């Protein structure tokens, strides 16, 4: 099967394929071969990219957090068994089959890492950022979490106990951050807008309401 999509949005001058970088040429060769062999289908490849690039991302996790902040019974279900509680909001699937949600409190903070690869809760956070997959974070999050948090501009009180969750199996972790002060009058949707990707990994805190407005 010929694969005639133009996959060179980053190099529009090279649409004839004559000036591909080595890695572009290598990937194109592999894709062409696997399509020709019939192991993959072009429209399925495009649909996978579209799904993870545009539809699955931290806005999903933000909805979960906002619901937990506004509905104590939901929060309890979420902390007791993450996967079905998240599924109540229509969220779930590959990379989030076994969700564990861990709650920050006034004197405890949680941080998520995968030291061995890049395990990350895809349905709620999308695909992980480069820094999450790169050696500096994977090496030091377990050894020096305070130092890592400082590199994100987050300095916690010395009395705050930090627990680091190393994602070494198919269990996937999401942090339920503390609800920011001064948000009593906000709607669930307004609260979700305060919930950042990083605060659900533990490398940040939710936005303050004045920052988001």
């Amino acid at each position: 099967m010929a694969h005639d999509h133009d996959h060179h949005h980053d190099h529009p001058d090279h649409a004839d394929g004559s000036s591909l970088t080595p890695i572009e040429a290598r990937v194109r060769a592999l894709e062409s071969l696997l399509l020709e062999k019939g192991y993959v289908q072009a429209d399925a490849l495009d649909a996978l990219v579209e799904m993870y690039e545009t539809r699955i991302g931290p806005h999903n996790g933000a909805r979960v957090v906002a619901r937990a902040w506004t509905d104590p019974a939901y929060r309890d279900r979420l902390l007791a068994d993450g996967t079905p509680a998240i599924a109540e909001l229509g969220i779930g699937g590959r990379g989030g089959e076994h969700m564990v949600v861990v709650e920050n409190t006034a004197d405890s903070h949680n941080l998520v890492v995968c030291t061995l690869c890049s395990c990350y809760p895809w349905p709620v956070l999308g695909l992980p950022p480069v820094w999450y997959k790169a050696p500096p974070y994977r090496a030091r999050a377990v050894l020096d979490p305070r130092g890592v948090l400082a590199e994100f501009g987050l300095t916690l009180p010395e009395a705050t106990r930090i627990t680091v969750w190393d994602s070494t199996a198919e269990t996937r972790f999401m942090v339920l951050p503390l609800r920011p002060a001064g948000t009593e009058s906000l709607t669930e949707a307004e609260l979700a807008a305060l919930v950042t990707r990083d605060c659900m990994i533990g490398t940040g805190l939710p936005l303050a309401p004045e920052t988001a407005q």
Partner: protein
Amino acid sequence: MNGAQDLGGAHGFGTVMPEANEPVFHAEWERRVFALALAVGYTGTWTLDGSRAARESLPPAEYLSSSYYEIWLAALEAQVVAHGLATQEEIAAGASAGPASPVKRVLRAEEIPPRFSAGFPSDRPPDAPALYAVRDPVLTRNDHPIGHTRLPRYVRGRRGVIERVHGAFVLPDASAQGREAPPQWLYTVGFEATELWGASADPGGRVTVAAFEGYLLPGAAS
């Protein structure tokens, strides 16, 4: 395996460099590698654990000097050849020189929403009761298997406590090799940071890992 992927506690990699407003992909070829890895994985020719094993089997210098999707690409090429889906020559040529191998299934676009939103759970019915319960002290085994395993080096031979019992799961050590094995109970095991890193560790700090029952031994209460 004690490969370059086992990074917990390593020094010298520098500071974390978050990228503001980071895109999901940084180049078109990354999109293609991502989708290819998922779609070929869906054929059932190997397991997700097999893919992890292929990535961490790259020579350490190559692993550490490659970007994330370069690692995925190299591992995917290696798996395609190792499992007989294509030859190295075909990959180099980007064209088929012979018939395709039969595969269990081929991912169709319309299957993606239902299959990927249902997910691919790894828990299985247990065939034995759990050996440990919450609050039990455990000692992690100090084993260094040559094959794929999911107990990082920095928690081997350490004393911890069972914090959660998750159920029985597919054992990655076997699944990576395409080998059938009984499911194993999976636990969250918590460690004091001082147990892992010594007296200079963050006071009050804790680290947890998800550990399979076979990685654990009963520990003396401290």
